[in-house]
């Protein structure tokens, strides 16, 4: 309804003169600005700013009512961290204009329906919370809010719906109570008690009702998969509903006294309590739709408690509702400002009420909580690194809580989830690179006495390797004490088997020299292929063969020689792969060939994992190898000794991502072609009497499109088949390796929990978690072929945990 604003994206570079009808747009901008920035950068109090703004808006209502409604609904949805500021504003407006209050409530309900229809569940939570706080502002009558909550909780009685659906409705109700619990209990305590005991029953905290023939147990199989640490100490990683329930229980015990939330409406009580309230229209939760995407369950990340912040304000306990509210608000601030790190840092550090809490601890905890969140962080990893750097800049003494946190994370590495350790490694090395790699490495000397496969020395080793990638080898040697030499990465240099004395006696040596000279003299591909024909095939006895079958030595000689000549930089190597693409394709026609080329890449660049990764990436993109070949190679016996190194998994996940993007790309092309055809057909229908000539050419075009669509359809099916096969290969290999280990341990009566096992089983989890969206489509096949009941229960548990994420 509102005028669409000119977007710069449409203009190109022409200075677009504002049209004569721009006045409303300018006013809309002004209104938006006034509302969004209320209270910011002002010398007067928030209350007086709100009072002033309410007056302005009331005056503007006759002309700009719809715009104001639109803006207020939007801030309710998009600025949850300022919830009570805006509910107060609405309260003041309602007190001055009852009809406007009613229209606003209606608009909010419409918006709530929209968000639920569009799977925007997180935003829906903020809308419901806003509505519930409007009870405190005398805009909405408490009993009607209780009715809405009752309708939400009744979803727990639904049968045959995913658990994540009923979870969400329970979560919404509980998460509003810090704001409105007191008010609702004062007005409707009987109903609220009933509500809470229903929720308690749902969370299985009471005995199941034996009278019911069927009762649903709330399943928490998913929890272990989402926990950052497996240890319960020092802080249990609680399932999010369990934690929130405990917090609400405590709040109830404290008679709903909540002192943290900033409530500007209290100052206006005398005005607001004169206002007439509205009843919420009856709201039936929309029914379950098969394509609904409810939020997946979470685990609450905690790394600090009051003992970690001994000076200054006390840190609220893990089951205090203050903790919930602070964490919610900090998460919301990050969600609003993540694209602008300076603003985000400033907003975090100016959190209202910051003097009463150890704010820095909360900020650091919330940021790491997001960074380590499973399955995926809410935002791209690098954002958190940069945000922490900004926070360091803005703090005097550079955010000591960060160093404290790093120490704690290091100390708890033994029980930290492997995926989270990956993120810790990447964060820490990138962070150090911004601070001249200054760190008190000696504090971590304890890791030097441990087996190198144990989490702590492994972590330091990987950090140093990543740090080297951002600097250079000698730098790393210089920054760590000499005692750390065993953890320093190898110098990333090429290993050329035909390069030194011992190489001259190798069977491929003569041809390697010839090829090398040929390349330097810009010989053609045909000439080089002719030279390579001379390479003996160690796999073959007779000479009848034309040399077309798989010859590992041929691949070895050519590739080693080529890559050696191109070893100077990534660009040189890419250029080499490009120039000799034809030859490489020729050599790797068979699966054996593909596997062998990867083997050779590893052999020559084994001290430079970064180079291996970029070469593998290039070879997939130029179709010298395929994704399945890479997966098979990574799981092969030859790579077993590197299996726990981070670069292996980076290559695997990068490979899966490329496969996924490939499928998505073709699917998109198919959709676009289908849309085009549909448009064509519409045009034909609408055009009526046309010249015959035109009709013919249209039919031609339509025919062409239909043919194109058929081809694309085949392409999509073929790509999906390749994708499914890739996952099958990967999971199959995992199952083989894990089963072998488990059987070996069982027969030897040895504990299964070796560092290798922990790494492997968590890597399996990681594949599920990182690609859960894609894997969903293949669940049937996976269950029928691989994750059957015959599988060892340790392995099957991972699969079941994954399934539980969607229940």
């Amino acid at each position: 309804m509102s005028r669409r604003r000119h977007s710069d994206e449409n203009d190109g570079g022409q200075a677009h003169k504002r049209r004569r009808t721009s006045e409303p747009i300018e006013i809309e901008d002004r209104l938006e600005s006034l509302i969004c920035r209320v209270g910011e950068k002002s010398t007067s109090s928030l209350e007086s700013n709100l009072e002033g703004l309410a007056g302005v808006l009331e005056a503007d209502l006759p002309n700009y009512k719809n715009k104001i409604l639109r803006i207020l609904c939007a801030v309710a949805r998009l600025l949850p961290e300022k919830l009570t500021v805006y509910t107060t504003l609405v309260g003041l407006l309602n007190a001055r204009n009852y009809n406007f209050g009613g229209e606003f409530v209606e608009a909010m309900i419409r918006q709530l329906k929209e968000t639920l229809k569009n799977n925007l569940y997180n935003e829906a939570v903020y809308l419901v919370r806003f509505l519930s706080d409007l009870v405190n502002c005398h805009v909405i009558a408490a009993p009607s809010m209780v009715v809405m909550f009752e309708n939400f909780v009744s979803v727990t009685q639904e049968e045959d719906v995913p658990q994540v659906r009923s979870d969400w409705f329970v979560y919404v109700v509980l998460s509003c109570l810090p704001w409105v619990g007191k008010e609702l209990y004062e007005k409707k305590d009987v109903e609220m008690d009933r509500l809470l005991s229903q929720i308690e029953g749902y969370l299985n905290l009471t005995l199941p009702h034996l009278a019911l023939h069927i009762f649903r147990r709330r399943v928490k199989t998913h929890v272990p998969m989402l926990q950052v640490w497996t240890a319960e100490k020092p802080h249990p990683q609680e399932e999010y509903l369990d934690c929130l329930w405990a917090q609400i229980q405590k709040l109830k015990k404290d008679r709903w006294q909540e002192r943290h939330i900033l409530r500007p409406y209290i100052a206006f009580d005398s005005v607001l309590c004169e206002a007439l309230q509205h009843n919420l229209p009856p709201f039936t939760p929309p029914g379950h739709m098969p394509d609904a995407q409810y939020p997946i369950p979470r685990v609450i990340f905690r790394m600090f408690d009051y003992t970690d912040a001994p000076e200054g304000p006390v840190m609220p306990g893990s089951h205090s509702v203050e903790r919930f509210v602070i964490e919610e608000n900090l998460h919301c601030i990050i969600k609003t400002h993540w694209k602008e790190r300076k603003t985000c840092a400033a907003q975090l550090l100016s959190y209202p009420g910051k003097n009463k809490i150890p704010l820095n601890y909360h900020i650091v905890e919330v940021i790491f909580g997001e960074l380590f969140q499973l399955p995926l962080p809410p935002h791209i990893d690098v954002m958190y690194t940069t945000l922490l750097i900004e926070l360091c800049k803005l703090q005097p003494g550079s955010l000591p809580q960060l160093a404290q946190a790093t120490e704690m994370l290091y100390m708890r590495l033994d029980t930290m989830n492997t995926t989270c350790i990956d993120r810790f490694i990447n964060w820490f090395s990138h962070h150090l690179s911004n601070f001249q790699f200054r760190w008190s490495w000696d504090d971590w000397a304890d890791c030097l006495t441990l087996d190198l496969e144990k989490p702590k020395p492994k972590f330091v080793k990987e950090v140093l390797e990543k740090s080297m990638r951002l600097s250079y080898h000698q730098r790393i040697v210089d920054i760590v004490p000499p005692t750390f030499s065993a953890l320093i990465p190898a110098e990333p240099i090429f290993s050329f088997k035909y390069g030194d004395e011992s190489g001259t006696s190798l069977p491929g040596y003569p041809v390697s020299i010839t090829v090398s000279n040929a390349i330097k003299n810009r010989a053609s591909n045909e000439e080089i292929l002719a030279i390579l024909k001379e390479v003996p095939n160690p796999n073959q006895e007779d000479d009848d063969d034309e040399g077309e079958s798989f010859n590992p030595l041929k691949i070895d000689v050519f590739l080693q020689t080529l890559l050696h000549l191109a070893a100077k930089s990534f660009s040189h190597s890419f250029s080499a792969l490009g120039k000799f693409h034809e030859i490489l394709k020729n050599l790797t026609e068979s699966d054996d060939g593909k596997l062998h080329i990867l083997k050779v890449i590893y052999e020559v660049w084994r001290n430079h994992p970064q180079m291996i990764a970029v070469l593998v990436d290039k070879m997939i993109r130029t179709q010298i190898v395929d994704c399945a070949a890479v997966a098979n190679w990574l799981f092969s016996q030859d790579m077993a000794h590197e299996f726990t190194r981070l670069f292996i998994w980076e290559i695997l996940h990068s490979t899966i991502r490329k496969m996924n993007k490939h499928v998505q790309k073709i699917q998109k092309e198919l959709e676009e072609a289908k849309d085009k055809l549909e448009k064509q057909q519409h045009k034909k229908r609408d055009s009526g009497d046309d010249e015959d000539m035109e009709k013919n050419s249209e039919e031609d075009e339509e025919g062409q499109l239909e043919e194109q669509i058929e081809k694309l359809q085949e392409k999509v099916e073929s790509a999906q088949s390749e994708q499914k096969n890739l996952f099958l290969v990967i999971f199959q290999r995992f199952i083989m390796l894990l089963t072998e280990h488990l059987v070996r341990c069982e027969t030897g009566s040895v504990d299964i929990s070796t560092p290798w096992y922990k790494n492997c089983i968590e890597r399996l989890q990681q594949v599920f978690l990182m690609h859960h969206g894609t894997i969903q489509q293949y669940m049937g096949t996976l269950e029928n072929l691989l994750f059957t009941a015959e599988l060892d229960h340790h392995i099957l548990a991972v699969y079941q945990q994954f399934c539980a994420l969607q229940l």
Partner: protein
Amino acid sequence: MSAKLNALNSDSYIEVSQYRDQHFKGNRYEQEKLLKQSNTLYVGNLSFYTTEEQVHELFSKCGDVKRIIIGLDKVKKTACGFCFVEYYTRGDAENAMRFVNGTRLDDRIIRTDWDAGFKEGRQYGRGKSGGQVRDEYRQDYDPARGGYGKLAQQHRSTERANSF
């Protein structure tokens, strides 16, 4: 979904800067269009010793890097402190503008900016001495960028010659 608030849509880090390549072949409109669609970033204030590998490692944190072209001194054909980073998607390049621009690589604060796209020849410095223009005129001593600026170097050698 209806309302998006312009006041909350601030994404200032991905905005185009004031710089415009004076050698760009095309009119201003075309240049603006390319900048707004570009997947390529110019990266400046690199050390002469910063390698393609280091650039790749850092910028890969924002997404898959399609290619990197290290800027070269036109005469010496050695790195002269800038490069181009091209991503496969614009979204990844935007993240680099938000999260890599203004942070350190090889201990130096680097600067990223939108580029209209690499064309052969643009990998060379445009300063008279072969390096970047900024290294012609700067007065400070920067050991990672060849020491003093070229003009300042000339003055120094002239001074030394005159002092005898």
